[in-house]
């Protein structure tokens, strides 16, 4: 075997040896990293849950335009086309009188009184409508303004914008607060995680500074001295990452299947859909964090 390859395997062997022979310090480091990775994983999960929650809420927000009973379907479709051209508009759904009646019957089929009075009316009392979804609150205001004052205003019976305005605005402001808060929170936590891990590993390496000096004394190159520390850092990170991943799996299996989270949004789905993402973040993130910290921490003592 070439000396380079021999030494590569030696560096790995020394790293593992250091981990095992220094088991007390290693366990301490693994524990700290484990907590950090659990926190990071938790925040990431919460973040992506919040994101899905926001999207599902945003899907529920819309503005309906009700047309006068004698409005022709052609005119309504023309307006629909017009609305689709607005860049803010995400979706415009046309609900004809018949569809509106069917939906009404579907929703209220339990309510006998309503059903009977509907039968008595004989003709269809419900108006045709367009349901509009846009991207921001400002867009809704703009659209409402266009509908109430533009060329189509004579066809329109009512736009339910005013009634929904407060709740729509509130929803959007909550959503944006969650978004910024989540990003800020994770950024702070990731920063704290990096600093804590770095300091832990730095202390461990500080206690070995004399050994580093001895290794250099014997003529070891920087790579040969640093290598085992990096391997040790990677091992600590991977063990901690695996442990925290296993903890997440355990929590996942303990949660009852029926547990719903904000309606259609299941916590379980989150674990299962994000499992690869979680492994990647925790195990490899841990390994990277360990390696990077070891690299930086040894730097100072190698200048002999």
């Amino acid at each position, binding site marked *: *075997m070439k*000396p*380079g390859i*021999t*030494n590569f395997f*030696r560096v790995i062997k020394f790293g593992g*040896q*250091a981990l095992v*022979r*220094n088991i007390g310090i290693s366990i301490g480091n693994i524990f700290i990293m484990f907590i950090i990775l659990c926190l990071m994983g938790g925040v990431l999960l919460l973040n992506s849950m919040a994101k899905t929650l926001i999207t599902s809420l945003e899907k529920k927000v819309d503005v309906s335009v009700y047309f006068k009973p004698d409005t022709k379907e052609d005119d309504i479709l023309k307006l629909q086309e017009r609305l689709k051209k607005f860049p803010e508009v995400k979706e415009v759904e046309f609900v004809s009188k018949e569809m509106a009646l069917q939906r009404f019957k579907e929703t209220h089929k339990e309510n006998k009184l309503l059903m009977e009075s509907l039968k008595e009316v004989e003709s269809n009392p419900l108006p045709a409508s367009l349901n509009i979804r846009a991207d921001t609150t400002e867009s809704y205001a703009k659209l409402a303004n266009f509908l109430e004052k533009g060329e189509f205003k004579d066809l329109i019976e009512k736009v339910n914008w005013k009634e929904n305005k407060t709740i729509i605005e509130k929803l959007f402001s909550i959503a944006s607060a969650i978004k910024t808060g989540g990003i800020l929170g994770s950024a702070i936590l990731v920063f704290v995680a990096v600093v804590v891990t770095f300091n832990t590993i730095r202390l461990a390496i500080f206690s070995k500074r*004399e*050994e580093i*000096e*001895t*290794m*250099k*004394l*014997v*003529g*070891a*190159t*920087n790579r*040969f001295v640093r290598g085992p520390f990096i391997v040790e850092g990677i091992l600590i990170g991977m063990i901690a990452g695996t442990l925290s991943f296993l903890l997440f799996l355990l929590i996942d299996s303990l949660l009852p299947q029926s547990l719903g989270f904000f309606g259609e949004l299941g916590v379980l789905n989150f674990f299962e859909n994000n499992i690869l993402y979680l492994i990647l973040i925790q195990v490899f993130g841990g390994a990277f964090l360990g390696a990077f910290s070891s690299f930086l921490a040894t730097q100072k003592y190698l*200048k*002999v």
Partner: protein
Amino acid sequence: MIYFDNVTKKFSENCIALQDVSFGISEGEFISLVGKSGAGKTTLLKLLLGYEKPTSGDIVFEGKSVSSMSPKELPYHRRKIGFVHQDFKLLPQKTVFENVAFALEVFGKSEKEIKRIVPQALDLVGILDKKDNFPEELSGGEQQRTAIARAIVIQPKVLVADEPTGNLDIYNTREIVNLFLKINKLGTGVILATHNREVVNIIQKRVIVLDKGKIVRDQQKGGYCLF
């Protein structure tokens, strides 16, 4: 083989460790470097190993200037010099065998060679039976033997020892000194820094006396005398 050419080392304006030191050492020579604490012995050895750079002058080792070596060249320079320290400087997490093997591992020697050479070195210093012990399980004398085995296992051109008997009792001191003489007989040069009268008087070889950073005596076959 080694030449100190007008070497001066100042740590600050009023802290002069070495001043205009010049002397040469030929291959296989045994030198006792004598002086009180603070005379500049350790600084001189550190300069030779490239741990410190001289303020002026130069140290030449096998025709190459040590002070102008790059950080990448230094490990290869140090591998030609075996170093023994007063505090032994063993790796606490490694056994006696592994400590000695480490010096060969940095060379990239194969496991087979290491298994062949290390026991020979351990046998030479008389500590083969402790090869699986960790440093903390050894006496001071045994730890120093391990350090010497680590220094000679790479077959250095010269063995440099900084107060190697400083932490040892009189019996261990004698044995260690005899070990150095034995190693020297096998052809390795030795530079032994010490302030121990007994040590110098046993050796009876070339003595260089340092005082306040200057060479005050350089005698081919001398005993212990500070002035």
